[in-house]
Every structure is written in structure tokens, then in C-alpha cells.
């Protein structure tokens, strides 16, 4: 049987119509995605006196009421935690800029980090821009592009995809499929340890494989400057009149013993302190503040109780620091 040109055209238009509908559905489904929800908090918090930035370690680790209690801030003048899980310093810079452009004038900007986050160059391909990285498509995309390199193929892909939520927020659909797949794979299997952030074991993948590998990386990193988005966070926060404080975030005792207690990390820490000190940034080493393995949900993140303690102590520490000055 032959198909007429009109019938083929109608079928193609039908497919296009379905894709348009799907594009709209994804846009609606992701209008409250995590980065957008986070940004939506800013207009109601322009009186905040402290702004926290970082990845999930800060998002989970800084509990706003506990920090406010520690620093003794007045109501509505406390901290706004804009840390974003699974984000790089580029997204964190974009969030700072968004907050400053929205009228926030924080007296202090806190930036929490771990391992080599401050000196390890951000390498991205369009395939990596999923989940919270998707904000690179829709928050100041041209500005952000200056901080990472894309191959020419990825550049073209980026320029096309950023106009369609169907592509930029694909993970909204994919994540549901993945969650379904995980539920099925759990049938008849021993229960996997999970927490509010996902599968606890997944975070082991972010750890260095061994102490020698970590020490080698310390050697390389001790010769590097701060990566441009981190330098920009410091510069733009300072220009906005904020005091900038970098926090080496609390890590589990096993991580501290294997990595942070090595002379190589002490040297790297000294290197960071010099780089940041030159920019008038205060450095707080909180890596040893939670000395018990039970204070951690997984190889990286603190439990809620530990986060409460950490937040209060950090607030107190900043208050004492400001009283000394």
C-alpha cells in the first residue's frame, strides 16, 4: 500500500504536535524544580543578613533557625541558605548573582566546600547538565558559559536545547523512570540504605579511591589558583559589601583520618588560606567539628541532629568573631 504525501505530512505534524504538548507538560511539571524553588525564596528574604552558598553539604548542613540562634540575629534578619545540591561553583555563583540582583544585601556570605572544590576546574558536557545543573540552561546562560568549556558539538547542542524544557529539564521525566527502575530492582533484594538525598552508597562514588591518590591530587591542587567561578563569588560578594567566609565543611572521621589528617592536605589547606587571605576572606576549618561516624548519613552528609549542632556552633563562631573585631 502506498502512503500519500499528505498522509505522511499529517502524521509528521501529529508527531510534532505530541512533542509540543510534551514540551509544555515538562515545562509545567518543572516550574517548581529545586533551583527554581530556591530562587523563589529570595524575594521574601531580602532582609537576610547572611547568605549561605555551596552544594548539598551546605544545603543539608546549615539549618537556618539553628544558625540564627547561634549568631543571635533578629527575626527575618537571619540566614538565607541558597546552597544547591549537586551543583558546581558556577551554579553557586549564579545563585549569588541572582540574590544580589534581587535586592539582597547580606553582611556576610558563607561558602561551604570540601576536598578540591575550590581549585578543581569545572568540566561539563551537555550530557552532564542534568538535574540541578540544568539551571545553566536558563539562568544567565551566556554569562555562565564563560566559566566552562564545551566542544563545538556540545555548543551547538546547548544553543538548540536551551530553548526547549523538553531537553533542559529532561531529568524530571527520567528521574521518575529511574525511581521506578530502582523500586523494581529492589524486589527480593536486601534493602538499600537511603536517606533524603538518595542512595547512601552512591556518595562513595564521590570519594577519592585511596589516600595515595588523594595525596597526589593535593600536590597538583597546591599549585593551582582558585577556579574562576570561586574567585568571582569572592569578588562579587566583596564588592556588594559582604564579609566573605569560607568553611571547610565537617567530614566523617574516616574521611578526615584518610585524607584531611595527611601532611599533603595540611599543605593544600595552607595554600587555600593564602589564596583566600589575599582576598580578605575568613577561613574556618570545621572539618573536625563532628568527630563521630554516627553524625553522618552517608560518606558526606551530616544527620539532621549533627547539622543543628554544626549550624548553631557556626553561628556562635561568627558572632564571636564579629565581636572581636
Amino acid at each position, binding site marked *: 500500500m502506498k502512503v500519500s504525501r499528505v498522509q505522511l505530512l499529517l502524521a509528521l505534524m501529529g508527531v510534532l504536535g505530541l512533542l509540543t504538548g510534551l514540551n509544555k507538560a515538562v515545562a509545567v511539571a518543572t516550574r517548581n524544580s529545586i533551583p527554581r524553588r530556591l530562587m523563589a525564596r529570595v524575594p521574601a528574604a531580602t532582609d537576610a543578613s547572611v547568605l549561605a552558598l555551596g552544594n548539598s553539604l551546605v544545603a543539608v548542613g546549615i539549618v537556618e533557625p539553628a544558625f540564627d540562634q547561634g549568631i543571635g540575629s533578629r527575626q527575618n534578619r537571619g540566614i538565607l541558605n541558597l546552597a544547591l545540591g549537586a551543583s558546581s561553583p558556577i551554579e553557586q555563583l549564579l545563585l549569588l548573582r541572582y540574590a544580589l540582583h534581587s535586592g539582597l544585601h547580606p553582611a556576610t556570605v558563607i561558602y561551604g566546600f570540601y576536598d578540591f572544590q575550590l581549585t578543581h576546574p569545572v568540566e561539563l558536557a551537555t550530557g552532564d547538565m542534568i538535574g540541578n545543573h540544568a539551571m545553566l540552561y536558563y539562568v544567565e546562560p551566556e554569562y555562565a558559559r564563560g566559566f566552562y568549556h564545551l566542544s563545538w558539538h556540545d555548543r551547538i547542542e546547548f544553543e538548540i536545547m536551551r530553548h526547549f524544557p523538553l531537553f533542559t529539564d*529532561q531529568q524530571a521525566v*527520567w528521574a521518575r523512570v529511574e525511581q521506578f527502575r530502582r523500586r523494581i530492582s529492589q524486589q527480593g533484594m536486601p534493602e538499600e540504605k537511603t536517606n533524603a538525598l538518595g542512595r547512601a552508597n*552512591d556518595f562513595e562514588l564521590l570519594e577519592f579511591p585511596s589516600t595515595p591518590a588523594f595525596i597526589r591530587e593535593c600536590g597538583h591542587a597546591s599549585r593551582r589558583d582558585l577556579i574562576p567561578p570561586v574567585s568571582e563569588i569572592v569578588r562579587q560578594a566583596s564588592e556588594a559589601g559582604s564579609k566573605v567566609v569560607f568553611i571547610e565543611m565537617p567530614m566523617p572521621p574516616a574521611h578526615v583520618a584518610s585524607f584531611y589528617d595527611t601532611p599533603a592536605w595540611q599543605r593544600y589547606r595552607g595554600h587555600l588560606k593564602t589564596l583566600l587571605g589575599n582576598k580578605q576572606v575568613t577561613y574556618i576549618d570545621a572539618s573536625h567539628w563532628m568527630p563521630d561516624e554516627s553524625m553522618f548519613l552517608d560518606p558526606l552528609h551530616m544527620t539532621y541532629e549533627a547539622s543543628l549542632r554544626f549550624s548553631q556552633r557556626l553561628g556562635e563562631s561568627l558572632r564571636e568573631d564579629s565581636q572581636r573585631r
Partner: protein
Amino acid sequence: MTNLNWMKQALEYLAGEQDEAPAGFGVTLANWWFWALWWGAMLFLIYAFSGQSSKFIYIDF
């Protein structure tokens, strides 16, 4: 024709390998809205199941 053979031919017809539907298969090539729906659904399945390239799967936060 056995049921299995009929199903094989029907699937080959749906996938575009054969131009003729097996006897009793109610959809012709002229039925444009069915084919739009069918290929739209196929594209959606590809879309939903692809896209993850990193080893670390961070979906819950």
C-alpha cells in the same frame, strides 16, 4: 498462520519493516493519526529512558 507468526508480522509492520499488515490487523498505512500517535509514543519512550551519562546518579535532591 500461527499466533506467534502473526504477532511477528504485526510488530514488523508497526516497526516499518513490512508495508503490508498481516490479515486482520485493523490499521492501514493511510491511518495517519494512528501512526502519529504510535511514533510519538515511541519517541517518548526513547526520551524517558535515555539521557543519563554520568556514573553517579543524583536524582533525589
